[in-house]
């Protein structure tokens, strides 16, 4: 019992217990983050070094022109995400965001199946005029540079 300790020690013991718990929480959090954080891939990365099949990741790229197809159930959408080098087929069941259109950027959250198809649980598109997912912002600049390099 802490009460049995001398006055000087009670404060110290309480402090040590609190620090111990917080330290344990920090270590646990660091470990959990390593195994649970969802990494961001562009198509060429995900082809070169695919994540484990049950790991949740994010895939970002441009929706290829002419690739969006709605399946017979009316709610499953299949499309292809590309980054100019590689292409990844994506399937998504749900209501697509309003600014999800061919030729524009998208970030898909989900898992890569062993057969190379990406199963998305959620799609993030540009969600208003002023807001672009940050991954897409970087990519748009990167692609702009590529286009400039190719035309010169």
């Amino acid at each position, binding site marked *: *019992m*802490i*009460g049995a300790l001398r*006055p*000087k020690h*009670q*404060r110290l013991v*309480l402090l040590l*217990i*609190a620090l111990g*718990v*917080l330290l344990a*929480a*920090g270590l*646990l*959090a*660091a470990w*959990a*983050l390593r195994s*649970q*954080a*969802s*990494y*961001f891939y562009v198509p060429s990365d995900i082809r070169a070094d695919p994540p484990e099949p049950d790991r*949740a990741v*994010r895939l970002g790229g441009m929706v290829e022109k002419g690739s969006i197809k*709605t399946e017979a*159930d*009316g*709610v499953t959408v299949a499309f292809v995400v590309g980054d100019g080098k590689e292409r990844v087929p994506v399937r998504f*069941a*749900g*209501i*697509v965001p*309003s*600014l999800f259109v061919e030729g524009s950027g998208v970030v898909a*959250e989900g898992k890569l199946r062993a057969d190379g198809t990406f199963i998305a649980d959620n799609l*993030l598109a540009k*969600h*208003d*005029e*002023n*807001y672009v*997912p*940050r*991954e897409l912002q970087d990519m748009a600049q990167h692609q702009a540079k590529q286009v400039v390099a190719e035309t010169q």
Partner: protein
Amino acid sequence: MIAEFGLIALWLAAALAGLQLLAGALSLTSRGQVLGGIVRPVAVMQGVLCALAFGALIVLFLQTDLSVKLVATNSHSAKPFIYKLSGTWGNHEGSMLLWVTVMGLAGSFVALIERRLPEPTMLATLAGQAFVSLGFYAFLLASSNPFERLPVPPAEGQGLNPLLQDVGLAFHPPTLYLGYVGLSVAFSFAIGALVTRNVGPAFARAMRPWVLGAWIFLTLGISAGSYWAYYELGWGGWWFWDPVENASLMPWLAATALLHSASVLAARNALRAWTVMLGVVAFSMSMVGTFLVRSGILTSVHAFAVDPERGSFILALLVIYIGGALTLFAVRASTVTEGERFALTSREGALVFNNVMLSAILGVVLFGTLYPLMTEAFGQKVSVGPPYFNPMAALFAVPMMIVMAFGPLLRWRQDNFARIRGQLILPALISVGVAAGLFAAEAIGALPLIGLAVAAGLGVASLLPLRGRNLRRTPLPVWGMVLAHFGVAVTLFGMASESAFSVEKLVAARVGQTTEVGPWQVRFVEIQPVAGPNWTALEADMFASYRGGAEVEIRPQARSFWSPPQMTSESALVTRWNGQLYAVLGEETDDGRWQLRLWWKPFVTLIWYGSILIALGGLLALIGRVASDVRRVVARDKIADRRMEMAK
């Protein structure tokens, strides 16, 4: 004219804040004591001037004065009145002005009524408050002037983001701000007490109403924000662990811990250094939250127009306040003498446990929120979501709630479990019974199962402190505690039930088709165009029937706003006592069917009812505390009067 008037008021208020800081600081020296007299009046004037500046901005928005840049970029003459009003604070500059205004008014209020603490401590507190405000004045005047004029006024304003055109959201940011500002007052009290070496029960009693008030507003603000995200985004979820949501949750966690440690300090004169530390942490978390939201440094589903320059300014403020406060704490911590001792098994012991667990949850949330920033420094882009936050938060929340069930039954100072064992048998049996029943009957996840079991036990246990009391004579703060703890059980039950029993249906339906989701039958009757003041929409007309009962009409919409152009989906809800039906209309398919997304969410509404109970509990405690403070003052005045008469 009005804009210039507002700007002048703002400059004057800033100058007064400078004077308040200077006079307050100098009054603590032996030669500057004479300056102490002006600190309170200056603080009052500063609040009044802020309020005038904010009033000017409101007038500009109501008039849609397009020569003011802020109005032109954020308002539109065709907007409904309520959104013109809420447009005042629905943008960066306006919200920062609201912040300093509330802070100035809080300072005035403290200056006018708070007389319990020794005068030097009060002056140091008001100087601290001025110090915090000055940073925000500098921020407003240097980089976010809300009254800036445009050389050529445009013909029409650009409008307010349609997602923000919502009654719930109109009052969500000011509610959170009131909470943040309340914590800034608590922070100033902590600084004042540290500077004048006066950390004790009187300090805790003076600070407590502000912490309680802040905590009530934060609770309401977070739950309003969560309900807004739930029905406005149309994703069916009520909490996404999004950085902006976490930014509001972290100050709440710190404030909850502070509230409990302050009550230990006020009642038992223990946990002195810890309470001061939490006062600093709680305000730091509001600043971190503001920084995360306003800088746009983290990817968020919440669309804020963000600006890196402003982000660096808030970061600089954050470093100055927090660095300064922590340095002060490090220097003065040794002068804070140890308070009363207590046994491990005691009310204090349970509250320490609560504090440590809340701090651990806070750490876990903070770490998870900032982790993407850390990895980005190494070129790795990640996002952190529910698979991390849910189990990690539960790991510390579940033990905390178990202790919460019996902590209030323990006596202060020293107690033993044998005394309260008898009372705890019933809640423990209920928890075990619920867990066993669910385990046998349904295939649900581990976390929801634990959540439902703990919620059931806690719901009963939270009422036990009322047992054997004369209910009429039970003090309001005790009622408040019971109600808030019961509210936690209610909210937890809603969360666990939603995640355990929700049913989702995604279909492409033809007009006339009936879809089943859980116990509901939803008949899709027709689709038609409708128009509002600044939008047009496609509206589905549907009739929903619960277990074959009477049909209820629901009309989910897919809306297109034209200024600024944007699509949103307006979900439709049917609320029953035991849950909500949630319907979203999607797009038309090529063969003329319509995408529908339907959910049946049993007891989901308990999440928000519970949080209202929590806030109401806080309100009862606040009323009780303030009432007893007032009674004490009245009694003291009476004694003084009597002495005067006797002297005559």
